């Protein structure tokens, strides 16, 4: 009996959800420019965390929270 070959998609494991995103990535996801993201941080609408070397990251949960309240 002929077997149907597995499609490529079914063999590639789904990467785990990221916990946090860079400012650039957050801006892209929200469809705004960098300044808008920093403005949202300044206003406390997005609470960032810091990476090991200190750069700002936006937790995934914060992005989801912001989108849910919009």
């Amino acid at each position, binding site marked *: 009996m002929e077997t149907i070959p597995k499609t490529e998609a079914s063999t590639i494991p789904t990467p785990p959800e990221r916990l946090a995103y860079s*400012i650039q990535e957050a801006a892209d996801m929200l469809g705004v420019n*960098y300044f*808008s993201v920093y*403005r949202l941080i300044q206003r406390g609408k997005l609470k960032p965390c810091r*990476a090991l*070397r*200190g*750069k*700002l990251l936006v937790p995934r949960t914060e992005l989801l929270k912001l989108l849910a309240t*919009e």
Partner: protein
Amino acid sequence: MSNLFEHCRPTELEDKAHADAVRHFSEHLKQFPASREAVDRLERDLAKIGLAANVAASKPTPSGNSIQADDGAQWHKSVELMENIFLCHRPIMGGADYAVVEHFPTRGTNEIWNRGGNAVEVLRMFAQEQRQALQIWTEDMGVQMKEFLAEKFPGQDLSRVANAFIHKCTTQAVSQKHSLTSDHAQNQSRGVRI
């Protein structure tokens, strides 16, 4: 602050590191000066913009395109302050209410940043917050720059490059070219506006 490379030319490595950084952070370099200039302009024209909003609000029939903000009320756009950010007004009993409203195109929402009965005060509050947001951006850019240089050129002291980049980004006019060497040559011949 004077030019950081004034007294000592950048080394070859510093020049390369700077060129790499400019490439890597090109979007910051494009967006930051434009945002900074928008805030500068806002601070400079505060009274003028406030007056324009007062005039618009004093008309018996509200003028300007109307939008519905996240407070559920209908607002009339008076002046566009920055891309997708407007000073708006709406009539209230015995006067007018003013608000800075940002439009988020992808979500189609309009969020109120600041509001109050005095247009100039509303603008001043907004401008102050924009200044603080620029400060957060500047600090973060400095950290990102140091991280980038440390990863790309491990063990090298490129603090002059990081400082020069941030200095350039936070002081240069929009649409200038970004070359450490050409800056150095220009600075020697005609000085730098800080």
